[in-house]
């Protein structure tokens, strides 16, 4: 059975060493603990003893070469080495079956053979240290580092080149940095690449395997309350920001501090649309529930085509507006983890039923906190439907670097004038925030007018 011996972590901050001498030749029969190499590190020159008995079938290094911790030094053909943990599986199994002793209990003692025999005999040891049983598992799993062992030349998965701070930033934001293609020198992943991955615009050339949004930490302590403290006026309690809160905070500050926001509001008379929906509901048929949101998205898809500046991002560095030919609408939702914005793709190519179906699917995913970072990226426009909970108008903050966001309030019954008659109407309050660098109030009013017109006359949707 072949085993590979890698430069071990020689301790206390050592990351590499230089091969001073090679003490065995390829094909040599080597005894366990026989010195095979002399390696010099920052701290000392040390002889490295073989972890196994066997034949040194391949020596991967040369004298004078600098090797990193974890790099393969020698391949052995022999009776199993330190790295071949599974070969030893029977041994611990026996131990935990018979007793499950902790380190402190099972003591191979230095004593005369008679005494040693009784001590080492697990059978007559009736101690039941539960903690130890838990710790000494029947079959030790191979340690995680085994993952790399099939590829002597290095890890299988290519590790992106990136500064530690950028790695940390990516980690904090749930971005799999190794899945990004860097735009820096030599393909180095920059903070801006990670930001792009978070912010929506997909980094170019990203491989398909999407990163999972990290699940909430597996280990929880009953409560997560912060420390109780007090200030001059009474008790207070501090709470550290969760990772998602930190991300939201950062995104919001970035948006508000870089984008000159303007918010315009208008009302859509959705009386007819609601009647239409009631009619559809009466038909039943177990299809997806057609919500007003489905109509709204359909409307938006159409109006965004007509007013492309609202289906765009603003590139301040290049001083360009980046018009998107696809219509991917982000929908801000309140998930168990906080605000997330899953993106519905190519909305213009979906029927109202299709949109309704897709909305149902997204809602389900959000509820189960089961979505990938990819599903949060690539939006061109965002809708925030706070009205589902309450409220009329708002001043939504743009999802940077998009150009606009539409806030949807709660549908209200209002009295209105129809000629001289007072009539009861259903009104949907709308608030559109836009980037005043990209466009102006007149454009926004035209866009909003169109949206209102379609929502008030849903028949128009049929003929576009």
């Amino acid at each position: 059975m072949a085993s590979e011996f890698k430069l071990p972590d020689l301790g206390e901050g050592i990351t590499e060493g230089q091969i001073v001498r090679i003490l065995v030749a390829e094909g040599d029969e080597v005894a366990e603990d026989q010195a095979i190499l002399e390696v010099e590190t920052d701290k000392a020159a040390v002889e490295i003893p073989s972890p196994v008995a066997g034949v040194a079938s391949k020596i991967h290094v040369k004298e004078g070469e600098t090797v990193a911790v974890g790099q393969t030094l020698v391949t052995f053909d022999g009776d199993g080495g330190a790295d071949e943990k599974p070969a030893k599986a029977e041994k611990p199994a026996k131990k935990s079956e018979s007793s499950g002793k902790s380190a402190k209990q099972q003591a191979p003692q230095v004593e005369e053979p008679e005494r040693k025999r009784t001590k080492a005999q697990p059978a007559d040891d009736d101690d039941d240290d539960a903690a130890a049983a838990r710790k000494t598992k029947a079959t030790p799993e191979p340690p995680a580092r085994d993952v790399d062992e099939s590829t002597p030349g290095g890890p299988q998965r290519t590790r992106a080149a990136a500064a530690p701070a950028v790695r940390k930033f990516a980690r904090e934001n749930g971005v799999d940095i190794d899945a990004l293609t860097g735009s820096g020198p030599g393909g180095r992943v920059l903070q801006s690449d990670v930001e792009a991955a978070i912010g929506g615009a997909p980094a170019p050339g990203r491989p398909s395997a999407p990163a999972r949004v990290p699940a909430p930490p597996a280990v929880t302590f009953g409560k997560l309350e912060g420390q109780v403290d007090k200030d001059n006026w009474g008790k207070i309690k501090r709470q550290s920001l969760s990772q998602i809160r930190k991300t939201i905070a950062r995104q919001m500050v970035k948006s508000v501090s870089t984008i000159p926001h303007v918010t315009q509001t208008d009302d859509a008379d959705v009386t007819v649309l609601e009647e239409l929906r009631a009619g559809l509901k009466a038909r039943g048929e177990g299809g997806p529930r057609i919500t007003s949101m489905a109509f709204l998205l359909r409307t938006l898809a159409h109006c965004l085509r007509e007013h492309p500046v609202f289906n765009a991002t603003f590139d301040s560095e290049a001083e360009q507006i980046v018009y998107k030919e696809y219509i991917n609408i982000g929908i801000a939702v309140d998930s168990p983890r906080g605000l997330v914005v899953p993106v519905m793709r190519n909305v213009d190519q979906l029927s109202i039923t299709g949109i309704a179906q897709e909305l149902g699917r997204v809602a389900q995913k959000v509820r189960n906190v089961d979505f990938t970072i990819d599903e949060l990226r690539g939006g061109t426009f965002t809708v925030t439907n706070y009205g589902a909970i309450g409220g009329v108008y708002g001043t939504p903050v743009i999802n940077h670097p998009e150009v606009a966001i539409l806030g949807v309030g709660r549908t209200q019954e209002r009295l209105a004038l129809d000629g001289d008659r007072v009539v009861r109407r259903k009104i949907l309050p709308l608030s559109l925030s836009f980037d005043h660098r990209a466009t102006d109030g007149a454009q926004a009013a035209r866009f909003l007018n169109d949206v209102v017109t379609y929502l008030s006359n849903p028949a128009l949707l049929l003929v576009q």
Partner: protein
Amino acid sequence: MPRKTVEIEPRVEYLSILDEHGVVDAALDPRLDGDLLARMFRYMLATRRLDERLINLQRQGRIGTYGPTRGQEAAQIGTAMSIGPEDWTAQAFREMGMMLVRGWGMHMPMFFWGGHEEGNVVPEGVNDLPIAVPVSSQTLHGVGIAWAMKLRKTNNVCLTYLGDGGTSEGDFHEAMNFAGVYSLPVVFIVQNNQFAISHPRRMQTRSKTLAQKALAYGFNGIQVDGNDILAVYVAAREAVEKARSGGGPTLIECVTYRLSVHTTADDPTKYRSEEEVRQWEKRDPLIRFKKYLMERNVLDDASVAGVEEDIRGQIKEAVDYYEAYEGVDPVDPFRYCLAEPSAELVAQQREFEAAMRAEGLMR
């Protein structure tokens, strides 16, 4: 108001019984029982072989940094065998020989230096304190134990171990003073192995001996050849008997040599000559003791080979046991810091978990 000399007893004995050539001073030879001698040898050899194996395990990446014992076997085993299981010890961090005598398993140092706290859990029924890395902190603990023994009127004693470097610590001097003032049943075992990491003995104190430090605190100090297990044992027995019978503390300076590195992260060629090491290798405590035992017919070649074989098997058993160990959840330290984790701690834990996951070290 005259100017005169205050008389103190500036007296430090030096004891050597078995010299480096294996020649014994017949008048001083304690003529110990053959069985006891064989056990001493067994522990010394086991300590030596285990020490060698631990260095290899570290070089192979199977345990972390390790602080070897090589050369100090007589000092440790001679003193440890001078007390009984009812007595106590308060050790530093280089006392593996003592630990084996006291009943710690051979796998324990693998756990400890492999980074598992289980290796520092004192075995059931063993009256030792755990390994203490803060230099000399254990001397205060040892004195505290001795004080309790005195208050409880037991006949027990406590040995506390330290190195030459440890004698420069404030803790040591406080412990010495307290032990002297209260006449406590404690024996200070100073293993003068000539180095505190790279710092040589001569730079540690201007005193001629370390033993004489005891004089300032009003009790006796004795210097012994720390590589001569007979001298170490005799001196320790005397000190222990004295303490047991209410005579108060003693300091024993075992003059020895750290034949190996301070720890596996150390390179002693940078601060001492190979010639010096070669000189001390000739004074190896095992060589002379083995000669003595052979001459006394306690051992022969066959019995030595048998002991070697036994020890090899036990070390193998210990390594297998250690390597089959699953380890604990790396998140555990966060769980046991505070009863109610603080927000900062929770945040740190999350960061730690994310980093572990990112490195593929945790699911």
